[in-house]
């Protein structure tokens, strides 16, 4: 074996270790993320009981009251309402994109969905603040126009690209023969979609909806600009309130690092982190389930 061969085989081994360590960085980040966020966040429980944090709606850092229920409810509310509108709309959009749209339409719609995804969330928030908030105020005759309704409205649009692109992928993956079989048996186009295509693609569609919810619950900037940022339980869809991410971004700048106040904000971030990892676990469970064995 000559010298050239030895060095190229040594290189071969060396790059393997480079690649595997690059890949391990990803695992390392998640572990570090969990460690640093929980280490900072869990310190809250030295001064605040878990019961108070999760079940009290009294948030008043100046008086040492750290009940985060308002923000947890706020986050859940905007997520649920936005998915109720954005979910069905996104699935319909995905059916159109994957199954009905002619090629020219698809060539417009596909880049449009990429653009929805690429528009910065502060721009969504800014439009929400300058257009939707005054519109809601005038149309519904409410005092401020800030609140869960406006936030959910913006979020419903923001989660569309996530839902559409994942659901459309799942719908495209449904084998052509299933549809042809159904059409050949005399079913209409919609009967085929409803009875054959949708059930087959269901795991992928649900994945899209769950990831859409993950995007909604973690969205910070757009929600912060239209939710009103008031630490009070929402009395209606139109009263100012706050969510976990928006409260973090508003208060983090004013809190001394390591104080109970600061730690409780980290605890809120930990709640968000656990929710998002939990959603990935759900998605994995769903996608391992196949409606039809092919």
């Amino acid at each position, binding site marked *: 074996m000559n010298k050239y061969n030895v060095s190229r*085989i040594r290189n*071969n081994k060396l790059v393997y270790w480079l*690649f595997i360590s*690059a890949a391990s960085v990803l695992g390392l980040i998640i572990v570090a993320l969990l460690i640093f966020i929980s280490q900072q966040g869990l310190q809250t429980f030295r001064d605040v009981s878990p019961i108070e944090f999760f079940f009290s709606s009294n948030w008043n850092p100046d008086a040492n009251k750290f009940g985060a229920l308002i923000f947890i409810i706020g986050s859940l509310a905007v997520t649920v309402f936005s998915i109720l509108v954005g979910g069905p709309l996104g699935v319909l959009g995905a059916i159109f994109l994957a199954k009905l749209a002619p090629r020219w339409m698809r060539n417009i719609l596909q880049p449009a969905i990429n653009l929805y995804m690429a528009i*910065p969330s502060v721009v969504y928030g800014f439009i929400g603040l300058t257009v939707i908030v005054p519109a809601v105020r005038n149309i519904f005759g409410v005092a401020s126009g800030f609140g869960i309704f406006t936030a959910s409205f913006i979020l419903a649009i923001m989660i569309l690209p996530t839902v559409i692109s994942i659901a459309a992928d799942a719908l495209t993956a449904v084998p052509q023969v299933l549809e042809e079989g159904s059409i050949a048996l005399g079913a209409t186009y919609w009967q085929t979609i409803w009875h054959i295509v949708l059930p087959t693609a269901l795991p992928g569609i649900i994945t899209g909806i769950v990831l859409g919810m993950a995007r909604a619950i973690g969205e910070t900037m757009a929600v912060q600009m239209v939710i009103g940022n008031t630490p009070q339980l929402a009395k209606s869809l139109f009263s100012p309130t706050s969510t976990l991410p928006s409260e973090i*971004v508003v208060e983090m700048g004013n809190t001394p*690092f390591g104080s109970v106040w600061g730690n409780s904000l980290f605890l809120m971030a930990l709640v968000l982190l656990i929710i998002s990892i939990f959603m990935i676990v759900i998605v994995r469970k769903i996608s391992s389930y196949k409606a039809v064995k092919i």
Partner: protein
Amino acid sequence: MNPKTMDKIAKIVLWAVGVFLIALLIVFIGYMLYKGLPILSLQFLFGMPSDIEAGGGVGPQLFNTFYILFLSMGLSGIVALGAAIYLSEYAKDTWLTRFIRLSTESLATVPSIVLGLFGMVVFVDYLGMGFSILGGSLALSLLNLPLLVRITEQSLRAVPQTYREASLALGATKWQTIRKVVLPSAFGGIITGIMLAGGRAIGESAILIFTAGTTVSRHMGDFDVFAAGETLAVHLWYVMGIGLVPDRIDIANGIGALLIIIVLFINLLLMALQKKLKMV
């Protein structure tokens, strides 16, 4: 209901949804450009910002936006390429591989504010970088990584297995095969992934507020990675929320239009690139 009528209704509804999606986007972008384009003067684009008086520009923010984008894409691009090569070319179904895949997927759904807090604790505080361009770029890399890994791995996997076999049969080592055969064939897909991730990272703000900060260097075009690094998106949020300048709505409109233009430009490039790749 008669299945035929139902079929007609369904088709009409689906078309309506498709047209609505495009119309809404056009109205959204059109409105932002209509409001913001008149603001975009040279003075606005390249001038220094003002804290109190009207007429400030966004020069340093514009510079920081691209500087942080390139730094973070460079950092995450290298790691993502290595990780994707491992996952597509080497990985067997071991616990390590499964753990890496789970981590990549989880990282993709972690809210950006959580990544921002993590960056604040680790880069700004623990590693002592302060609110800086470097801290912001590192935190932003965390956001880019999962998307880059996924798209790079997909394009590596799309390279036909026969290419690898032919190269190995000619006596090349695995690394030579990857470098001379697999990577060049997957190049187009990898570039697409980088542009997609870049288009998304350029408007990111939640991650940068507590890592790159909300102030800028006094010097225009400061390449110092330890200088404060407020970007356009963060500045838009800052002037609307906390800013004291009287013309903050104008500034925000201008930044909004500027961000839309940048995003449109990146997406047009992406479309042209994808068209070219399909033709080859």
